[in-house]
């Protein structure tokens, strides 16, 4: 999956008001591209083919809960940073989410815009660092392959 020059944030909540509020705030405050979904299954379909930097989701949703959705996100885009935003201050859900899908942050509603933005910015930075790291590892692998190739040729030349 290709990466984005412009950071992309996916916001999923079955309440339209939450998606609209967060989208409007982020559009005012940042140049990020916001993909909003009120249907978690639609969100999963989108995540399968479109790269995102951050996934923010509610927990309690019909069809698919937030932890299940983040498990799909992790499968399709492991480097995308996962955040839970929930009105249900349920420690059990949080523990499950952290253990099963590696949630980066767990935020409670009502959220504070400034805090949300801080978390999203850190999440984007984290995702980009992961991608850079993956790129560097690929470069190192390629360089290592070249060195081994040269070594093999040298050995052949001297034998």
């Amino acid at each position, binding site marked *: 999956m290709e990466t984005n020059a412009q950071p992309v944030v996916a916001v999923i*909540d079955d*309440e339209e*008001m*939450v998606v*609209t*509020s*967060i989208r*409007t*705030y982020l559009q*005012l405050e940042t140049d990020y591209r916001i993909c909003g979904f009120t249907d978690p299954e639609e969100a999963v379909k989108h995540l399968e083919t479109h790269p995102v930097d951050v996934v923010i989701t509610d927990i*309690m949703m019909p069809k698919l809960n937030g932890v299940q959705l983040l498990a799909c996100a992790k499968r399709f885009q492991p480097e995308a940073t996962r955040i839970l935003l929930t*009105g*249900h*201050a349920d420690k059990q859900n949080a523990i499950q989410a952290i253990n099963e899908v590696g949630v980066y942050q767990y935020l*409670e*509603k*009502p*959220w*504070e*815009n400034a805090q949300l933005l801080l978390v999203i910015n850190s999440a984007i930075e984290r995702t980009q660092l992961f991608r850079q790291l993956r790129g560097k590892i690929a470069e190192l692998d390629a360089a290592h392959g070249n060195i081994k190739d040269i070594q093999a040729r040298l050995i052949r030349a001297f034998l």
Partner: protein
Amino acid sequence: MAPDELSNTEQLRRELELARASLAEARKMASLGQLLTAVVHEINTPIGSLVSNNEVARRSLEALKRVLAGSPEAAGIVDTMAGLAAIDKIACERLVAVVHSVRGFSSAARGDRGSAQVNDLIDNALKLAAWIYGKRITVEKDYGGPPAIECYPQPLGQAFLNLLVNAGQAIDGQGTVTVRTRAEGGYIHIAISDTGPGIRPEDRPKIFTSGFSTKPLAGRLGASGAGAGGPSGEGTGLGLAITRDIIVELHGGAIDFESQPGAGATFHVRIPTEQGRKHGD
């Protein structure tokens, strides 16, 4: 039946009645806790949107005012809208504060042990007690900046709420509830005073007894009125018994009171700053 046996039977019957009342109260509180949790969950989402939208609206109005700088009439309309948005911001902040306060008290379980500031727990309890106090009761705070303590924050907050509600309900008409906190050795000393009529001498030995209340069904529950009620036992006489249990049994602390007829009452709570230590160690 011999008089002694009769007395024992009567005593057992009373204890059974109290146990039944305690159980009914515990069930009621558990249901109430679940209900509150559900209500808080339901209103968190719209409040989150309101707070977020309000910030966007205020900033958009500021931008609009700059754009409309050449038109005094339009700028005046924007000023009016900005004024209303500023009021909405205050309203939103109050809603958020209420949600945070209620969330702290909505769990029926004792929750996890952790570090908490006593002053913060009292402030949260005061926000809820303020609903009962209205404009009738003035609150005076004298906080001594005690250190954070290791405790069970949820039940401890409930204990403070019980004492604060009792203090407020002890006062007929206008009055003052005073809260004082101090660090004393390895303990935090919290004193909650009211300007009510004081506790009658004959009621004092029974004040922490489960089921004791000066007005058993729905009467005055104040400290000065020797009631034992509040949010955890209004009318059943369980509030102060539960409070004592939280302070003494759960936290190894101590609770007592002093009262002069006509001069109000003061409840003294002492909580060890580190758990595992008992009051008097």
